[in-house]
């Protein structure tokens, strides 16, 4: 187990290193680094000064190591528009995004699991077909379009839901949360639901497919033949087998949720890192953009690592390394 984790951590570090190289060269070779690091109002003298400051006259590999050592010290430069370190700005905005993403995850599971289970138990019914059609549509429609229709329907036409912002927040250990106030929750529901749809679609499909496979398995028949109650069979014997693929995919898709949060946040003006990125792009706040990219890549690699470890904890067959047929 320890060996497995160490191996995966090393792999993750290699991937991270590769990604920093890609971002660095992406920024420095494809784009013009001066424009990325200098503010847009910079004149010629300022540009020359910036070039020297950034060490852009030095060889590329040397620049990379300077970039890397700054990165390791958590220094990703200052945001132009906000005048504070880009990284601290990201951490300031992150709770809002995480709150949104976690609520979306909860919704995806809360709706997706029961729907998938139902569809798996009654595969040939009309309701089941409707569930699967819903899943296909939720999966293939662009997120921004769904958000837009939600705003049009529930905010503009019906006036039930607020269209922008977080609403009232509560301070919990220095973190502002919307989910704990009624007004905040009211603001949270629509963006979180919009964001949850793709994952909900995936959960429905996976759960249904898993159900179809598991309920015909011999071990379920054996459990029935032993007289175990149907509810116990469903909640333990079936569910534990179902959850393994779902947890894995959810872990991997959680990154996708963070990515799609960019879209949802900019539609609903949710003040998270995604909205921050789009705003930064709008005003060409380049250090902030680079910081976001590095941060997101880092988050992804760590997330994938965690999923792998979690998966091995959940599935006894993987944990003990093989002996599967």
């Amino acid at each position: 187990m320890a060996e497995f984790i160490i191996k995966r951590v090393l792999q993750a570090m290699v991937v991270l290193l590769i990604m920093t190289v890609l971002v660095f060269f992406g920024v420095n070779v494809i784009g013009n680094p001066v424009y990325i690091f200098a503010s847009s109002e910079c004149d010629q003298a300022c540009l020359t000064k910036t070039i020297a400051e950034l060490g852009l006259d030095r060889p590329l590999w040397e620049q990379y190591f300077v970039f890397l050592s700054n990165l390791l010290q958590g220094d990703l430069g200052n945001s132009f528009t906000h005048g504070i370190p880009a990284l601290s700005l990201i951490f300031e905005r992150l709770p809002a995004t995480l709150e949104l993403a976690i609520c979306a995850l909860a919704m995806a599971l809360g709706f997706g699991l029961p729907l998938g289970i139902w569809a798996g138990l009654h595969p040939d019914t009309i309701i089941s077909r409707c569930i699967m059609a819903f899943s296909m549509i939720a999966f293939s429609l662009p997120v921004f379009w769904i958000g837009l229709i939600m705003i049009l329907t529930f905010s503009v036409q019906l006036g039930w839901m607020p269209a922008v912002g977080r609403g009232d927040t509560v301070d919990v250990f220095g973190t502002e949360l919307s989910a704990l106030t009624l007004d905040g929750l009211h603001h949270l529901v629509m963006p979180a639901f919009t964001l949850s749809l793709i994952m909900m679609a995936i959960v429905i499909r996976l759960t249904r497919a898993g159900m179809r496979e598991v309920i015909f398995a011999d071990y379920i028949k054996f459990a029935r033949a032993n007289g175990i109650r149907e509810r116990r069979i469903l909640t333990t014997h079936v569910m534990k087998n179902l959850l393994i693929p779902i947890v894995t995919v959810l872990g991997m898709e959680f990154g996708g949720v963070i990515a799609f949060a960019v879209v949802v946040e900019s539609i609903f003006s949710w003040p998270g890192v995604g909205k921050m990125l789009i705003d930064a792009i709008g005003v060409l706040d380049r250090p902030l953009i680079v910081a976001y990219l590095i941060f997101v890549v880092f988050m992804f690699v760590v997330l994938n690592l965690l999923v792998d470890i979690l998966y091995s904890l959940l599935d006894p067959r993987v944990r003990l390394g093989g002996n599967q047929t």
Partner: protein
Amino acid sequence: MTSVLNVKDLHTSFVMPDLTIAALQGVSLSVDKGEILGLVGESGSGKTLTGFSINRLLSAPGRVVQGEVLLHGQDVLSLGEEDMRHLRGRRIAMIFQDPMMTLNPVLRIETQMRDALRAHEKMSKAMARTRAIAALDEVGIPAPESRLRSYPHELSGGMRQRVAIAIALLHQPDVIIADEPTTALDVTIQGQILSLVQNLCRDRGTALIWITHDLAVVAGIADRLAVMYAGRVVEIGPVDDLLDAPAHPYTRGLIDSVPARGQRGQRLKQIPGRMPALTELPVGCSFAPRCEHAKAACAALPDMTALDAERSVRCFYPLAEGSA
């Protein structure tokens, strides 16, 4: 002796909107206390289906459409769902073919045994644990305490099947239906499992229905044999009588196609043709198209006719002793 389990004229069909396939067409058999009944037939003959019809675990669209399953004289088929659940595992237990597949891969042995125990008896975790250890000990699993913490894949095939047998025996059932429990095992392990089950059932007086396609396996342990063909029992009787002097041409064919010692170099006999699909069964005797003795009368369906007190056969022209 009174029968523990008595199956009378059991009909099971797959009922679908556009067609109905009659898979079992009148299966009758019985098994006494402490007796081992071998249920033999080719795949598709309906032997597994008979097992699932008895404890009502047919998956849709399968359905018992006619007949009786009497457990100590009480009709199982008329029980309510909750009563039926309470019967499964407690009075009628099952053992399946592939021990790899019968134990839940993600639950510890202890959880699976505890669930099986608690399905029928209220008991504490500690109590369940004690019972489970005792049950594992009985089926010859070394160090049962530590095995309880294992997951199925950590055990060998033979060990897994022992665990499944221990689970089946937890509540001292009246009948155990064992569906080819040794087929997936190595030959050496097969022998161990066979004698284990045989001994456990004999000691407790548990009736056992041993479903298999392998005549050689049941010949060693069964008291009586029932031979199935295309959804019907075609011959039933004491194992020695049946093997020495089969009355149904199909039984004869089955016996002849088992290679025997002392026959090396001789050509193995085989039954010509194959079992018809359930959708295209002939109207009369379903074995007639493959039978070398078939005559015009075989276009009608023969009834089960008693040859003596213990034997009956479904054939108009039962083979006389010694004929081939």
